[in-house]
């Protein structure tokens, strides 16, 4: 039941990304192109996507977290780290460069893969390779 639920939630998330227009890298890059503001090429849509998502999640999380436990687990698993270390600066800095180069972040890249065009495949394969590399480095530093 939990696995079916997770498939349906992923499906809903993907539909949301398509409806929001975020599966189109051109739309993302045009949001990130603040240099195009004066020429009228800037597309502020992504800010509205974030506003809609945060409004719903901000309220919804509070309602859900009043429950003693989630539906399919005995406890909530929320991230516990709170400190600002070098990793929380370096990681997002690297991610942002990649996001700005192609206009894909992980969710929209997975949606693009599902369109079957194949154009997003090199990105997704490289993304998993980058993830594997980071996990390998982190694991080795933890073992030392």
């Amino acid at each position: 039941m939990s696995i079916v639920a997770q498939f349906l939630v992923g499906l809903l998330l993907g539909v949301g990304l398509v409806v929001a227009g975020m599966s189109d890298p051109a739309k993302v890059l045009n949001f990130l192109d603040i240099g195009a503001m004066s020429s009228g090429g800037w597309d502020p849509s992504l800010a509205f996507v974030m506003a809609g998502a945060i409004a719903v999640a901000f309220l919804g999380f509070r309602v859900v977290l009043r429950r003693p436990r989630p539906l399919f687990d005995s406890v909530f698993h929320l991230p516990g780290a709170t400190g600002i270390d070098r990793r929380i600066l370096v990681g997002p800095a690297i991610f942002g460069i990649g996001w700005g180069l192609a206009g894909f972040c992980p969710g929209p890249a997975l949606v693009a893969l599902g369109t079957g065009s194949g154009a997003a495949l090199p990105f997704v394969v490289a993304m998993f390779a980058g993830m594997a590399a980071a996990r390998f480095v982190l694991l080795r530093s933890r073992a030392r």
Partner: protein
Amino acid sequence: MGALEIVRTAFTPLAALLGGAVIGAAAVLLLLATGRIAGISGIAARLLPPYEDDGWAGRAAFVAGIVAAPLVLSATTGAAPVMHIAAGPVVLVVAGLLVGFGTVWGNGCTSGHGVCGLSRLSLRSLVATLVFMATAFATVFVVRHVL
């Protein structure tokens, strides 16, 4: 890179708000079902070994759901999602490596930090979001207006 194709897109505030609300609802439902944050990069990265728990099948189902979304949409509505990929294969590979490495190194992407973290008022996620927005703005500026 002046030859890079720039496709103009229309400002679509209502679709953006609606789609955003659906994304937020999915994050709420994942928390309700599994008790976990809908961080797409973290869920995708944990499909790779080493495996820390028995949640692999659930994560695979979640990722499969995202990939299936355009198929289900075009089957039900007849409309395929609009997509313009301007970057060539080399840039796509470099970008993919950076996105994959950076999101694991920084424990999250646009969904985990940007949507879920900000909704939880996490300072770490606020810092992460400001940093990836800043480098993404800077990268697009350099690619489109400097090079």
